[in-house]
């Protein structure tokens, strides 16, 4: 049983194939993360799954409905939080929820009954009459999340839910998303924030250039793709030391003035570093970010 299944999905814009043969499966109740650098095809993939953009090839089944043919029916039970807030600036906070509920053909009384609980959830109780342009970025994002819950969706799509938020606002969103998964809702989110993916997602798919390049839980991905220890080294003489390091560790990479040493055993590397007092180092466990950089490369994607 899956809530979202995509097979051999393809979408081309002009000469560029943005999604090239993507398969996805999302199970009920999980938080599924779609990771990828800018331009990897994350947003297009979400739009295809929602039936907002039509694929050139491939099949999508969303909550048991074929997409895009019956996407409209599937969207009755779906919530969407877009990357860029598109709250209705002509309405107040409360009116945004009231008007949006009517797009789902919900009776006015039912929508009205839901609003106080949603504003509470969004931390916006008491701001019912505020205009949208007076809200902070975090408040807008929380209101957008509340708006996505107006129809009590089974599945919620979120496109970079915390991009552009300060740490306080981000942590509050994370807490709310965890609350939603505890209530049994399925979440699909895109992000390039590795900490977010590691904290929230049960399962991840890393995509690049429209292709799936790895999938699994954050721990599985780290265990499978990367050595458990990372030592970051910089300081005078790091270039000479880098050559020595190659004999001590499985993989050594340079990015600017920093050497990244990926090792199965950290002890030999750390022991050797004791003989080089000019070098500054940081020893840490491998993270999802290391996996991401290994699989998608360190080149800038603009």
């Amino acid at each position: 049983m899956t809530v979202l299944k995509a097979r051999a999905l393809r979408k081309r814009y002009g000469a560029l194939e943005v999604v090239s043969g993507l398969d996805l499966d999302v199970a009920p109740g999980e938080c599924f993360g779609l990771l990828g650098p800018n331009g990897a095809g994350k947003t297009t993939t979400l739009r295809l799954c929602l039936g907002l953009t039509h694929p050139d090839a491939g099949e999508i089944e969303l909550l048991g409905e074929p997409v895009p043919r019956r996407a409209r029916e599937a969207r009755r039970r779906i919530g969407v939080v877009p990357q860029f807030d598109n709250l209705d600036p002509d309405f107040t906070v409360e009116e945004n929820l009231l008007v949006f509920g009517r797009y789902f053909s919900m009776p006015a009384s039912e929508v009205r009954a839901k609003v106080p609980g949603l504003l509470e959830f969004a931390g916006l109780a008491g701001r019912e009459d505020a205009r949208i342009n007076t809200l902070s970025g975090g408040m807008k994002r929380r209101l957008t999340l509340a708006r996505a819950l107006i129809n009590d969706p089974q599945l919620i799509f979120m496109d970079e839910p915390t991009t552009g938020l300060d740490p306080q606002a981000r942590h509050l969103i994370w807490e709310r998303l965890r609350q939603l998964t505890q209530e049994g809702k399925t979440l699909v989110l895109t992000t390039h924030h590795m900490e977010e993916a590691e904290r929230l997602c049960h399962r991840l798919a890393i995509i690049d250039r429209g292709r799936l390049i790895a999938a699994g839980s954050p721990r599985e991905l780290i265990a499978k793709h990367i050595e458990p220890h990372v030592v970051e080294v910089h300081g005078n003489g790091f270039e000479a030391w880098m050559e020595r390091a190659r004999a001590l560790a499985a993989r050594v990479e340079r990015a600017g003035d920093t050497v990244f040493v990926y090792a199965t055993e950290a002890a030999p590397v750390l022991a050797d570093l004791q003989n080089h007092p000019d070098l500054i180092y940081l020893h840490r466990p491998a993270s999802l970010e290391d996996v991401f950089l290994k699989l998608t490369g360190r080149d800038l994607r603009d």
Partner: protein
Amino acid sequence: MRWFAIWRRNFLVWRKLVIASVLTNLADPLILLFGLGYGLGALLPSVEGMSYIAFFAAGTLCSATMFTASFESMFSGFARMHGQKTWDSILYAPLTIDDIVTGEIVWAASKAWLSGATILAVAAVFGLAASPLVILTLPVAFLVGLAFAAVGLIMCVLAKNWDFFSFYMTLIMTPMTMISGVFFPADQLPRPVHLFAQVLPLYHGVELVRPLVAGRLPDHVLIHLAVLLVYAAAGYAIAIMYARRRFTA
């Protein structure tokens, strides 16, 4: 009737700003009507058996309807579609781009109808539209609104930026107003121009409304209605086609 949720959304926003909205929609046509109507009208004998101001009021009813429908579907529609991305958010709900296009066109026609109806009310108050037949101008105004809203929405979903609309305004709407019999009888113009006016929707709106304001039933009613209906229906179909292309391609 799913489109009604979109109509309702626009109505709720309009209701908040109703006074400003009605005033700005009516100021221009009414200033023109009374300025030209009384000023120029004093120099003119009756036109087609009516006082010039009554003649011009019938034309203004149509042109105000046209302008309101066009402005709402182009500028306000583009603001909602492109500027504030309201259409994007509506598409997260179980609604389609077809529902949005329908809701926007009917909304723009409704607002245009209100402009036409208000001009009629003002004209009636000043004794320029005394016959009971003027009631029939109300459905005609809605049809004129639908025709121009549908064409305006094609412009909206084709537009890349705001400048796009000035071409339509300057090159199509302004000349259309000149040759369609709003200010003076359309057959005053050279025959080719007069014939050309007859393929445009505004001409047919004026041909229906003016006799009704004068207290007569218009001639060739079916032809005039048919042209307006074709503009509304074809405009609607084309707007949907381009809207789908813009949103789902």
